[in-house]
């Protein structure tokens, strides 16, 4: 059975505090809080990216059977080059081993797949491929922003030449079926969906350091045993890379868990690490899934409500989308770039007003005091941006 380990690597483009009454003669660079972005990138580089990448390099060298996969957003790569170039070097070294795959996604970590006009979505995927090809070979597998997935998204990916696509292994999509097989997608020819095993993924991503958890503490040996007891062709363990050292600090033992994982998995003869592309090539599709409404890996709902759940999110997103035509008409490279930077899904994530436990997760990641402050600041900037677009038409 294939074991597929995949990490999402991303850092948002956090916005600067922008007053509602601010004059709009300033440079668009003032929209973004580059100092805060630098500070966070430098911190996470030290706590997570560098130690995790070095450990991965070590594990790849020691364990010939070990494989791993990533997707790096374009905005992550940009910020990395500016604020933590060493991190990019280690990713390039990982690519050189030939056993780390770098998947495709949207350059701006955007919700552009939800735009009426899909051209923008396609442009951002192409931009991303170009950025990845600077240090790694392009992948045949696509993973959309926050694992957003639907029949239509799969269809678009297939048209762009992708053979596989990542998605959340949701019970209501699968019914009685297991996420541990590949599936074709309704309305598509042959693209195969790799479905996240959410329980096992969250055991590491969320519950690893949870003392209330009955399985605490989680060891690599126990985890490998759980994997070995599963039935199927592949197990897909997908999570944020920041799991290591950032969501779970080093003193929780998360790095030690990772250090021992490859050897513990390989003690079970029938388990083998594979990259998404290898799995798509080797494993057959065992059925078809039908996903008319967009799903994702976020929150309890696992849909788009984390970004487009309330009126503030929906109306600001609609406003952003409505600017698209004029933005392109200006032909102004800066305008187009900033419009895309404002598409970053995180801007909308911070505006989420769900109650329950998910709100705490949103707050944990948010640089704002409240979702209302997030909306106000975003709208202040977007209104200013709209004026600039008009000026440059």
């Amino acid at each position: 059975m294939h074991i597929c380990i995949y990490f999402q690597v991303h850092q948002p483009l956090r916005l600067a505090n922008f007053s509602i009454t601010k004059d709009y003669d300033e440079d668009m660079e003032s929209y973004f809080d580059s100092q805060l972005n630098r500070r966070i990138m430098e911190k996470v580089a030290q706590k997570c990216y560098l130690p995790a990448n070095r450990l991965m390099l070590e594990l790849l060298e020691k364990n010939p059977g070990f494989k791993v996969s990533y997707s790096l957003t374009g905005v992550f790569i940009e910020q990395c080059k500016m604020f933590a170039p060493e991190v990019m070097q280690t990713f390039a070294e990982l690519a050189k081993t030939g056993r780390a795959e770098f998947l495709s996604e949207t350059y701006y970590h955007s919700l552009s797949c939800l735009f009426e006009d899909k051209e923008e979505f396609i442009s951002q995927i192409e931009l991303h491929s170009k950025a990845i090809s600077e240090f790694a070979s392009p992948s045949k597998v696509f993973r959309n922003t926050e694992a957003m997935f639907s029949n239509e998204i799969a269809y678009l990916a297939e048209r762009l030449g992708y053979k596989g696509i990542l998605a959340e292994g949701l019970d209501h999509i699968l019914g009685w079926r297991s996420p541990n097989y590949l599936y074709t997608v309704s309305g598509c020819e042959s693209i195969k969906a790799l479905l996240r095993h959410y329980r096992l993924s969250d055991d590491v991503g969320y519950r690893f350091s949870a003392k209330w958890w009955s399985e605490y503490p989680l060891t690599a040996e126990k985890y490998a045993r759980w994997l070995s007891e599963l039935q199927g062709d592949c197990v897909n363990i997908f999570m944020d890379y920041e799991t290591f050292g950032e969501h779970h600090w080093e003193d929780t033992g998360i790095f030690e868990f990772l250090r021992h994982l490859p050897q513990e998995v390989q003690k079970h003869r029938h388990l083998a690490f594979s990259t998404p592309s290898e799995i798509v090539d080797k494993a057959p599709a065992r059925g078809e899934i039908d996903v008319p409404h967009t799903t994702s890996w976020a929150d309890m709902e696992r849909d788009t409500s984390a970004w487009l759940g309330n009126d503030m999110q929906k109306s600001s997103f609609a406003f952003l989308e409505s600017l698209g035509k004029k933005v392109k008409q200006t032909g102004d490279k800066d305008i187009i770039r900033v419009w895309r930077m404002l598409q970053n899904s995180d801007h909308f994530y911070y505006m989420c007003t769900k109650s329950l436990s998910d709100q705490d997760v949103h707050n944990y990641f948010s640089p704002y005091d409240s979702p209302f402050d997030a909306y106000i600041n975003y709208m202040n900037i977007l209104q200013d941006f709209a004026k600039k677009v008009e000026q440059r038409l």
Partner: protein
Amino acid sequence: MLGWEFPPFMSGGLGVHCFELTRALCRLGVRIDFYMPVSGQKVESSCPSIRIIEVAKTELRPYLFFSKASQKASYGENLISAVREYWKKCEEAVVECAREEKYDLVHTHDWLTYKAGAEASRRLRMPLVQTFHSTEFDRTSWPWDYILGVEREAAEKADLIIAVSNRMKEQVMRLGAPKEKIRVVYNGVDYARFSCPQTLGKAEQNFKGGKKLVLFLGRLTEQKGPVQFLHAAKKVLSANPDVIFVIVGKGELLPLLINMSISLGISQNVRFLGFVPEEEQKKIYKMADVFVMPSTSEPFGITALEAMSSGVPVIISKTSGVAEIAKAAIKVDFWDIDKMADRILAVLKYQPLAATMSKLAEREASSFGWEKTAEKTLEVYKEALSKHAERKL
């Protein structure tokens, strides 16, 4: 339970708290004798198992100091002697009634009632629970040593202390109460009373004159922040002249505030309504487009919950107890006038923001019922009783 005021004879949060708490406790099966000074007005019990016992005549309103000078001139030492008289009579009345009615526990509120309760509980050998709604530091800029002395004694000697917020808890710890003795029990709101739909009549519409209405409601003292409110008003008006600022309440700062609105050149857009009875208050909440509570020091802030119940978007200071529990609110630092003005403008400008805040505020306020406050208070009673019983053994 020993109190100082009860509707309609009321000048602050203490009266609302006692009225609502006794009502909700009564529903939980608690029988209460509520002692208070003779008010000269008709005070009715809201529940058959609550007896209201008026013991000493006073017309002093201790929360309405106008200045250190007028405080002394108007009642000065009179206040202290009136309170002392109340203590003495109240203590005797409690001991007298205890012959027929078997009490389990004495509950006092603030310094005004503490001494009577302390003496009565000592003589009757029963536990004493003391609630702090505010301390001398929160009420006035010129704290009285005598009152602080009583508060320190209460902090030290009460068996258990209820603080209306974590903020209050810290304040009580500063008075010398050990942390282990303090329980935080938040205030609630009678959601149904403020949420009932009020349609705006012609008079109200004329009052607004097609303008947006920003509301301040509270005692006009430094602690409540009316000065910041006017400074913010000035900034708002320079960006949007179609706004009126309504100030409800009376207090020592009224003359200063009127002069200030003239010297700032905004008197055309500021209305001082003075004291407003509850029925009118409900209408004013409904007329408001945003409620601002810019308190520099606010142990709780029930008015914010009343505004939220009415579906008004609220902007509250971070230094308030209510900010600890209210999620559907914008929170600002009381000194950050720029941000306060910015946020007021945003709520007035961005319709989806106002709509989302309004909806969420109502929903949230409906979950802050007094039943919860009563349940938590009852837990504290039980704890105090069991501790007391242990000590007797």
